[in-house]
Structure formats: C-alpha cells, structure tokens
C-alpha cells in the first residue's frame, strides 16, 4: 500500500464512523482504536517526511480533479514538520488519556476518543490542505469538536465555557466565510497557489478588507489579543488531555493558518508590523493576567496565549532566522505546555480544589509528577539548559539583527513576569 497525504484524513474519519460499531464487540476497543490511528499518523509522517526530503514537496490531487478545480493536499518541509509534530503529540496525548480513564466515566469515553481524534484530524487538515474553502471546513471540524470537548464534563461551567467558545467561534467562521467570498469574487479561484499568483491584480483596499476578515477569523483560533476571551475558560473547563491538545495542537493550527494567509496571500506593506504589534499586545496582556490567576489551568492558559504572542512576534520579524526561531518555539511550546497541562491536571485532580494554594506540599504525595511539572515550568520560562532558553535566545538574536531594541526589552521584561508566576507555583509544590 502506498502511503499518501490523504491517509491523514480518511483513516481517522473511517475510524470515527467505525468506533461506535466496533465497540459493540468489546468496550475497550473504543479506547484503543484512536491510539492505533494516532500511531498510524506517526507512520505516515515518517514516510512522507522522507519523501519530502528527497523530492522537495508532495502535492496530492483528490478524486482525479486537477489542482485549480479540485482540492489538493500539499506537504512542504514546513507543513510536514508541523504535521509530524501534531502526530507525535496526538499519540502522546492518547497515551495520557488512556490512563486518565478514572476521571472520565466509562460510558462517555467512546465519544471522547472520537472527538479528540477528529479534533487532531481537523488540525492536520488545516495545515496540509491547498484549497482555501477546504481550510474553512477543517477549521469548522476543529471548532465543533473543540466545543464539544470543552463542555465534555456535564457540569455547569463546562457548558458555559463551551457556549462562549462556540459563540466566538461561530462569529469567526462567519468572518472567514465572508473573506473567502470576497476573495473568490476578486480572483475567481479557491486554490491557494493560484490565489497568491493572482493576488497582485486585486485593488489595495479590497485586499486590506479581506486580510482584516481573515485575521479576525484565524486570530480567534490562534488566541490573538482581543479575540482570546474563550481560551482561559475553555482550557480550564476542558478535561486534562483536551487542554493539552488545545495548547499543543489546535493553537498551532490556528497560528499556521494565520501565518500562511499573511505570507502566501498578501504582500501588503505593514502586514508584518501588524503581526509584531498584535503579538506584543497579546503577550504583554496575557502574561500580566497570568500573574493574578488562582486556578492553575487558567494560569497555564494565559501563559499559552503569551507564548503564542511570542510566536507571532517571531513570524512578524520575518527574517529567515526569525521564522526558524518561531518554528523552534512552536515545537518547544507544543511539547512543554502539553507536559505542563498533563502533570498540572494530575496535580489538580489530587488536590481536590482547583486553586494554586491548595497545591501546597503536594510534592510529598506525588514527587515524580511534581518534578516533571517543575521541569516543564523551568523549560517554558527559559532557564539555560532547557529548550525554552534557546528558542527565546534565537528570537532575541533575530530581533537584534533588525535592531528592534524595544522588542528585546519587552520580551525580557515579560520573561521576568513569567518567572514570577511559574516559580510561585513551583515553590508552592
């Protein structure tokens, strides 16, 4: 059997439909099958990345319709890297959620596995698709599954967080649909490669309108400043593995979508400055909000928003070194923040109340989990031997090359704030 990019989409979809039937045979199967699918995703990534290394990029035509008319899936080194990251992370999260079954009661685990798998599939789809409307469809798959997962626990606040997310997400999807409509009237195609070729014919004013609509749409998934009201609630109310998946997978897909729209479709003067300013505001506000949070998962959520601001800044600097730094930071953040959410939810689960102060002295009860949490905290604030330090250093050197002194000062100042609130938790353990 030849492995092609379409396997990323059809295998999880097939499994999602099959799980309710197969779980009639044995209950445990509904929990194991998502893991098998996640592992197969890693296999696909491995095979495809080797092919990308030799060929350069892979473009797969779906259903025999050539690219401008049909939908194609594209794997470049950039998107392939992100998809591999998501695949590996998806498998790790599945391993964690397999042991998490005590918290989620057994009757609902069937739908949990399906939803989690479909959310990851949607995120992969956002990254590999070459068609702008298909991108919208995958975004909606992510949105609907993410809302269902947010309100997975049938308590009061879960439903409220889910509804908030759905309201903002629904507005975002309307904006993206409108942007696609305007784009289609101007260029007459939905293929992203063709759009970027014909983009120079579009008048500057309409281009800016489309860009603003897209930024509103994707900014919500990428947790950009005025649009991230859903994030802290959703992160804190969702089950632990889902919070890890939000931080590691969904946000990455949102940022990739935003960056791809800005890099490939638009060359407006000031778009990159906009990224820097948006990232800066997002980062500063989020990190300062994180300081006075009492709920651990809320604090981690704000920290996650802040890190995404840093990624946006790095993309906004725009040099080759900065883009590398952004990718490196995304890689670090995906792994480290997932670790923090996983260990953090175990700590929360054992502390009875969800506040940080109730964690006092828990390290005596759960030494290994606490040590892992501490390592994650050190890595994310950027203490020297850990990866967070190197990614921040790369961003700072990239900013220094462009002589953006103010930016460097802001990043350093925010790092100190980060150290304050993470060390408050770590010293409390």
């Amino acid at each position, binding site marked *: 059997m030849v492995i092609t990019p379409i396997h990323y989409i059809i295998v999880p979809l097939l499994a999602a439909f099959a799980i309710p039937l197969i779980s009639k045979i044995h209950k445990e199967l509904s929990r194991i099958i998502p893991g098998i699918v996640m592992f197969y995703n890693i296999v696909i990534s491995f095979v495809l990345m080797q092919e990308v290394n030799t060929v350069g990029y892979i473009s797969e035509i779906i259903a025999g319709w050539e690219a401008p008319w049909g939908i194609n899936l594209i794997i470049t080194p950039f998107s392939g890297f992100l998809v591999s990251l998501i695949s590996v992370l998806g498998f790790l999260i599945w391993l964690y959620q397999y042991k998490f079954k005590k918290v989620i009661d057994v009757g609902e685990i069937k739908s949990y596995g399906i939803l989690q798998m479909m959310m990851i599939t949607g995120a992969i789809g956002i990254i590999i698709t070459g068609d702008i409307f298909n991108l919208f469809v995958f975004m909606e798959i992510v949105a609907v599954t993410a809302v269902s997962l947010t309100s997975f626990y049938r308590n009061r606040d879960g439903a409220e967080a889910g509804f908030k997310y759905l309201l903002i997400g629904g507005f975002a999807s309307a904006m993206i649909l409108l942007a696609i*409509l305007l784009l289609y009237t101007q260029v007459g195609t939905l293929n992203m490669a063709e759009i970027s070729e014909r983009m120079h014919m579009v008048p500057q004013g309409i281009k800016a309108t489309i860009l603003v609509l897209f930024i509103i749409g994707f900014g919500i998934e990428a947790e950009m400043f005025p649009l991230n009201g859903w994030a802290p609630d959703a992160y804190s109310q969702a089950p632990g593995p889902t919070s890890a998946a939000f931080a590691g997978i969904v946000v990455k897909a949102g940022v990739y979508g935003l960056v791809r729209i800005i890099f490939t479709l638009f060359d407006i003067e000031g778009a990159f400055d906009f990224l820097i300013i948006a990232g800066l505001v997002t980062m500063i506000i989020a990190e300062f909000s994180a300081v006075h949070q009492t709920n651990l998962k809320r604090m981690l959520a704000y920290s996650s928003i802040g890190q995404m601001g840093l990624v946006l800044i790095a993309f906004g600097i725009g040099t080759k070194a900065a883009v590398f730094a952004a990718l490196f930071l995304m890689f670090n953040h995906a792994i480290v923040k997932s670790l923090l959410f996983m260990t953090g939810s175990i700590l929360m689960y054992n502390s009875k109340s969800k506040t940080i102060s109730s964690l006092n002295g828990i390290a005596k009860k759960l030494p290994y989990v606490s040590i892992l949490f501490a390592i994650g905290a050190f890595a994310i604030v950027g203490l020297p031997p850990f990866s967070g330090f190197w990614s921040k250093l790369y961003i700072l050197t990239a900013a220094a090359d462009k002589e953006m002194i103010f930016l460097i000062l802001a990043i350093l100042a925010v790092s100190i704030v980060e150290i304050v609130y993470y060390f408050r938790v770590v010293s409390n353990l």
Partner: protein
Amino acid sequence: MMQEEFNEIFVKYHEIITLGVYGTSIALMLIGLYAVLMKKNLVKIVIGLSIIDAGIHLLFVGIGYIRGGTAPIFSPGYENAANRMVDPVPQALVLTAIVIGFAVTSVALSLIIRLYKHHNTAKIDQIKSLKW
C-alpha cells in the same frame, strides 16, 4: 411559456434584482449581528448567528448569478451552454456551509439545554460563573 416570461422579467429588472439580493444579504447580516450583540436570550443569540450565516449564503449564491443564466448542468439541448451557466462553485460552497451551520447550531442548542438545566434561566446576563 412560463419560463420565457420569467426570463424576460429577469432580464428587464436585472439591476434591481441584483441590488435586491445584495441588499437583502447585507441587511440579514446586520440583523443577525444586532441579535448576537444586543439580545440577552441565548436562543435568540443562536438565531442571530444563523441569520448572519444565511446572509452570507445568500450573498454567495448572488455573486454566482449571471444575467439570464441557466442551471450549471449539461442536459440535452444545452450542450454548448457553458458560458451561459451560472457559476456552480459558490452553490457547492453554500451547500457545504449550510451543513456546517447546521452542525454548529445543533451543538449550540444542546449546550443551551444544558445551561438551562443548571441555571434555570436562558438569560446571558444571569449566567456568569466564569469571568469574561
């Protein structure tokens, strides 16, 4: 005969019909936006979201329309009609978007039912255990 009369009317009032479609869709979007922002009842907010979607769908179909165009189907007697057909792409997109809107609305309504069970109200200003 009916069809020809229709076509005649369409050609005659083409400008007005186009303007009407665009105006209606924009009006729908604004009405939906008003409902989302101003209404306090959760169900009304979801209805507002659906109305915004409906406006965008109408606009999508509207831009695909061409003067006196036929349905984008090759059928006997219409073999060479490719340049007189309306644009099929927006119609395909709208079909997909309607299905997505249906999914989003159903999830929203199920969440509202759960919120109502817990809070015994569907007013958004009385449901605020989480900070905005």
